[in-house]
């Protein structure tokens, strides 16, 4: 077996790749559903129904998609420059923590800002916390040659422990009956509901807006050009006089900020306080979303919707037919692997037999 480079790029093949990947994934995972002893067709129908079947279901899917769009964008922009930010999970938690820290100042005598300003400050603090958390690994990659994958991964654990420490200590809610959770955000700072009688909040608009903004940045700015050039070949980019280091650092700030905003959205839009289990792995799912979207910011919207639908649908499906909802994680992981292969096949052709 050997690989042969395809001479022409087919746009159609690139658009088809995620669809084929998802179909193959659902086919493979059907075997697991069957093993769990459930009828495959009914299980998938229930999964779809649980994600889109009612106004409530669809609203839940949109709510779930909100942080996923942001972590997906975070991974996509970083991967563009070949900065493998696997730390979105930790950046999300720190963003949430910073949002509550700033939001918690409301009403105190020392810090009496008008509400809109405080709200903006809360969002900025969350973005900054995420950005700063990634700055370290990005700097170590550039200056010391330390692989950012391992450092960002390890820092996820540190971030979660940091959050846990704050929730045990200075930011603990004394009224939480001993549960480690932060003081709740002032209701006035919470994002408003986008759809009545649902949990969809204005964070969804923020996520959509940022996806479009990221697309515009990548498409039309010099920074966007530098980003793609560095990702394609950083030596050539440096030779062409592009500021490689600055581009990577800026990219890290952007990526971390997006992940931090995912945390802000979860706190201000949904939970209103921080706990150590507020994210069921949104940061890791963001990697899959970015890959499914082929790193395209607008594709992230669709990919995030797919992953959200699988997660929300699996929860409701498992209550009916008893297939463990972990099937959602299996589907997401399988989709990542099949998408990797599908993307490769848009660039290479497999030739069997020896050359």
């Amino acid at each position, binding site marked *: *077996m050997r690989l042969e480079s395809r001479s022409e790029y087919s746009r159609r093949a690139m658009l088809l790749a995620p669809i084929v990947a998802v179909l193959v994934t659902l086919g493979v995972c059907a075997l697991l559903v069957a093993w769990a002893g459930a009828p495959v067709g009914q299980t998938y129908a229930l999964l779809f129904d649980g994600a889109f079947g009612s106004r409530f279901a669809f609203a839940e899917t949109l709510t779930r998609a909100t942080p996923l769009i942001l972590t997906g964008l975070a991974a996509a922009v970083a991967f563009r420059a070949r900065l493998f930010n696997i730390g979105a999970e930790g950046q999300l938690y720190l963003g949430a923590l910073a949002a509550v820290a700033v939001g918690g100042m409301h009403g105190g005598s020392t810090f009496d800002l008008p509400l809109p300003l405080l709200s903006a400050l809360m969002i900025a603090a969350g973005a900054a916390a995420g950005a700063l958390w990634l700055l370290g690994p990005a700097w170590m990659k550039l200056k010391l040659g330390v692989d950012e994958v391992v450092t960002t991964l*390890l820092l996820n654990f*540190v971030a979660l422990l940091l959050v846990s420490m704050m929730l045990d200590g200075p930011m603990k809610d004394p009224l939480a009956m001993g549960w480690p959770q932060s003081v709740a955000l002032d209701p006035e700072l919470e994002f408003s509901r986008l759809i009545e009688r649902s949990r969809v909040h204005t964070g969804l608009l923020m996520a959509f807006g940022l996806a479009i903004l990221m697309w515009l940045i990548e498409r039309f700015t010099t920074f966007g050009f530098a980003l793609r050039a560095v990702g394609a070949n950083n030596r050539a980019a440096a030779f062409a006089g592009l500021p490689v280091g600055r581009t990577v650092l800026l990219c890290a700030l952007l990526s971390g900020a997006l992940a931090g905003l995912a945390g802000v959205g979860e706190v201000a839009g949904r939970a209103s306080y921080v706990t150590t289990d507020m994210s069921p792995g949104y940061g890791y799912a963001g990697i899959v979303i970015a*890959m499914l979207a082929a790193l395209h910011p607008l594709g992230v919207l669709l990919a995030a919707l797919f992953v959200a639908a699988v997660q929300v649908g699996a929860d409701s499906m498992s209550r009916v037919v008893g297939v*463990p909802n972990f099937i959602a994680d*299996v589907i*997401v*992981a399988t989709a990542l692997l099949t998408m990797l292969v599908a993307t490769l096949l848009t660039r290479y052709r497999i030739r069997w037999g020896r050359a």
Partner: protein
Amino acid sequence: MMDFLTTLFDMLGSASFWVATLRVATPLILGTLGVLICERAGVLNLGIEGIMVAGAFTGWLAVFNGADLWTGVLVAGLVGGVFGLLHAILTVWLTVSQHVAGLGVTLLATSLSAFAYRVSFPQVSTPPTIEAFAPLEGLAGLPLIGPVLAGQTALTLLAIVLVPAIAYLLYRTPMGLALRMVGENPAAAEGQGVDVIAVRTGAVIAGSMLMGLAGAFLTLSAFNAFFFNMINGRGWICVALVVFASWRPGKALLGAVLFAAFDAAQLRLQQAGGALPYQIYLMLPYLLSILALIVMARRAAYPQALMKPYRKGER
């Protein structure tokens, strides 16, 4: 200060401290050797975290279903090898990004284990237990190291014995030479008649089998049950330890033991009721790994072809 030093020396002189250290070190030794073999052949294997989960789960499941402990170890190794084959197909045959493929393998192995656990045990709240490996009391008579070894199980001895065995394999056999060559200069290796794809595939499978064993140690020896979060970043720490060890088996053992000694020490400090929040102590292993990466980064002599896909007839 004197107090601190006395405590420190008491700790370093106590057999129980070293018993704990070796126990903490065992999965790290096995996992680090596994990563080392893959990387020496030029393949980064970030699947380790998930492969360890799968090894821990399947090894335990086999024993729970009546297999004996060594069969459980074998099952864990084989399951690790299967995920290794998947990683090899993706990265060596199809040449997709080693970073992303590894993360995909980790996500898949982790979620499959969780799924299979729930399908096998739909309704349990407390994890079912097994009869784990017993300590090797018979070795207590050995001078000096006797009391330390007596607290260990057979898997720890296996891990230690594997270090010189793998070093011998790497540096003293034609197979080891071929393996190192495909990690340094695959085109030259091909010129010498080495089948690069086959050697890399074999190395990734073998390395992943060790990762499976590393996971199995946790359920079959350190504990007697399976928990979802039991690997908890140990796999990533192994990836950092390989850099620290400059891709050498002996240094990998040293690094794993040093690291584990530090971990065992922080556990004691924590139990002694330090003034710091317990989370600070729990952060130390991760921070220490990052520190190791920083310290060694400048001196690190990466295998030259690490993360570089090899496609015949392409440069």
